[in-house]
């Protein structure tokens, strides 16, 4: 009874997509490892339907933030709500009805090495919805593999047989297995060649638009930030020092933000983005995604 009331109030009902405005709300997060303080009173809200890029120097706790949100890391203090459910109050492995609503792409893909790509995608389906028939589950898995931009033949391959870029896509296919509303991507374009990275960006954006995803994206890739992120959150000094669109961030005068976006790489990324905007405005169609279907 009380359980029901709780979900009513928080606006998360079974078999219904989340209708609230902020699928992720982080308040007063503190993460401390021994003497080392990673986060100090960190707060962040992610809007529904946006791609939020999270940037910050190495060691500023981007991955720790993501691990805290998905419940892999219990924070020292603070509260994190995902879809209105508190992650921090739940036990580490307690089922609070949000795990089947998110998908996570880890940095190295984290595919199960003894299973093929297709079987990897089937794992979450089997775990959460055992009532689905084998045939339907196989069909769903196949579809997800293709949705991630892999060929059909890749579904029966083992992760060790794939290239780095294909492994990322396979990881994405597994993250999308349950049709999540929230997608976490940890440096999805790291280690990809520029062409592959641009394709992955385009895929992320396309998926976000078709499936109505909210994307929490950790990245170092300035091109990704310019190309697909709706807003960018900057982690520095143990907290989120600014959240906003890139022009809004450029208007602030924090030295790290200035250095980040106005350094040589930042300027290049900005210039190339302006270039492609111009070309598109001129009616030159650039198929950045390079999709074979179009």
């Amino acid at each position, binding site marked *: 009874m009380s359980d029901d009331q709780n979900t009513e109030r928080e606006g998360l*009902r079974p*078999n219904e*997509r989340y209708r609230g405005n902020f699928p992720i709300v982080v308040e007063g997060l503190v993460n401390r490892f021994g003497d080392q303080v990673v986060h100090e009173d960190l707060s962040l809200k992610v809007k529904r339907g946006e791609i939020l890029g999270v940037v910050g120097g190495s060691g500023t706790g981007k991955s720790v933030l993501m691990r805290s949100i998905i419940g892999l890391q219990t924070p020292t203090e603070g509260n994190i709500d995902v879809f209105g459910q508190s992650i921090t109050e739940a036990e580490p492995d307690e089922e609070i009805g949000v795990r089947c609503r998110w998908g996570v792409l880890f940095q190295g893909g984290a595919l199960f090495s003894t299973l093929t790509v*297709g079987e990897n995608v089937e794992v979450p389906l089997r775990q959460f*919805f055992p009532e689905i028939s084998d045939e339907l589950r196989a069909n*769903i898995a196949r579809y997800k593999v293709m949705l991630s931009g892999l060929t059909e033949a890749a579904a*029966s391959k083992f992760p060790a047989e794939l290239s780095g870029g294909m492994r990322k896509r396979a990881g994405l296919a597994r993250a999308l297995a349950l*049709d999540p509303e929230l997608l976490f991507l940890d440096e999805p374009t790291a280690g990809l060649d520029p062409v592959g990275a641009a394709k992955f960006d385009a895929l992320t954006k396309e998926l976000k638009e*078709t499936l109505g995803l909210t994307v929490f994206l950790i990245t170092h890739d300035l091109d990704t930030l310019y190309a697909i992120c709706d807003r960018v959150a900057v982690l520095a000094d143990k907290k989120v020092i600014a959240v906003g669109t890139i022009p809004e961030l450029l208007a602030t005068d924090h030295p790290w933000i200035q250095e980040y976006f106005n350094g040589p790489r930042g300027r290049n990324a900005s210039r190339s983005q302006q270039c492609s905007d111009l070309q598109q405005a001129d009616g030159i169609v650039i198929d950045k995604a390079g999709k074979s279907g179009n």
Partner: protein
Amino acid sequence: MDGVTSFEIEQGENGSNRLSITGALLVSTVGAIDEGLEAIDQPLDSVDLSAVTEIDTVGAWIICRLSQRHDLQVEGASERAQRLLHAVQGASNDADLSPPRAPLWVRVTEHMGTKVANAWTGIVQVVGFLGQILVGLWQVMLHPSRFRMRAFIRQLELVGVASLPIIGLMSFLIGIVIAQQGAVQLSQFGAEALTVNLVGRITLRELGVLMTAIMVAGRSGSAFAAQLGTMKLTEEVDAMRTIGISPIEALVIPRVLACTFMMVLLGFYSSIVAIIGGAVVGELSLGIPFFTFLDRIKDVVPVYDLWVGLLKAPVFGLIVALAGCYHGMQVKGNSEEVGRRTTQAVVSAIFAVIVLDAFFAVFFTKIGWV
């Protein structure tokens, strides 16, 4: 009502059948209606989605499949449903998820053939590896400054000194067991005094070195394989090569030499401790005073028993180190391979040691060292 997904078929005025679906069409709910939808065998003309509250790609895929099978008109789809239906179109469904699998008789014969071929190439490779070590040793002898003294001493410590407690304990207990069990049997002939002969000869000649070799194979042979295997995986070995350091000289030779040398000392140590264990039993339960027991050893054990043990020891040491280093250097691919190769290193080392020990037994008997 809330959350229950259902479907029904309505008869239209002009005889057309219309399937209408109510509720959420999500991955969490389709399991309940999928079979029912599959089982529809009457002709359908259209599907009505206006009562569908939620839809995801799985729901869209099911509608897509249904509409293709019955050639349906999709009606009442929300904007999101239309977008998803469009997105899932063109997804084919005949690719295999499991790895390709040959028929049983092909797999069995292929597996056997691979085993046979591998056994042969394995022998060739081990001999090649031994050759590489010998060449490396020759190079080191020509240029003594290239010998890795620090690595050698470190390995002496790891293989030898660090294993003294465990080998000592094992040998002491083996000495006790042999003396105690031997005395029980020999007392049937009233020959308890021969327990001294039994303990002295069997430990110096056979068990001291053999048990030590097995222990070192488990302790150091596995460590060699795991260490070198991990270094192969992390490309440390390749990095060495590019800098111009021969991995054989830097990694393998110190280990092989340390293991060969230490096995002699450890084998001797093990025999001595086992004899002490026997003497303790003699003192406590056979009525042979401790020092008398040790004194008798000198008289009843011929000195060539010691040589038998000490001649076997370096050979066993070489085999253990060779197996460990060889399997370590063969690792490629993933971390699972490290585990497999480590197991193989230990198993093949122990096996080779026991087989060779049998050869040695026959050989030394033939030359008159009985």
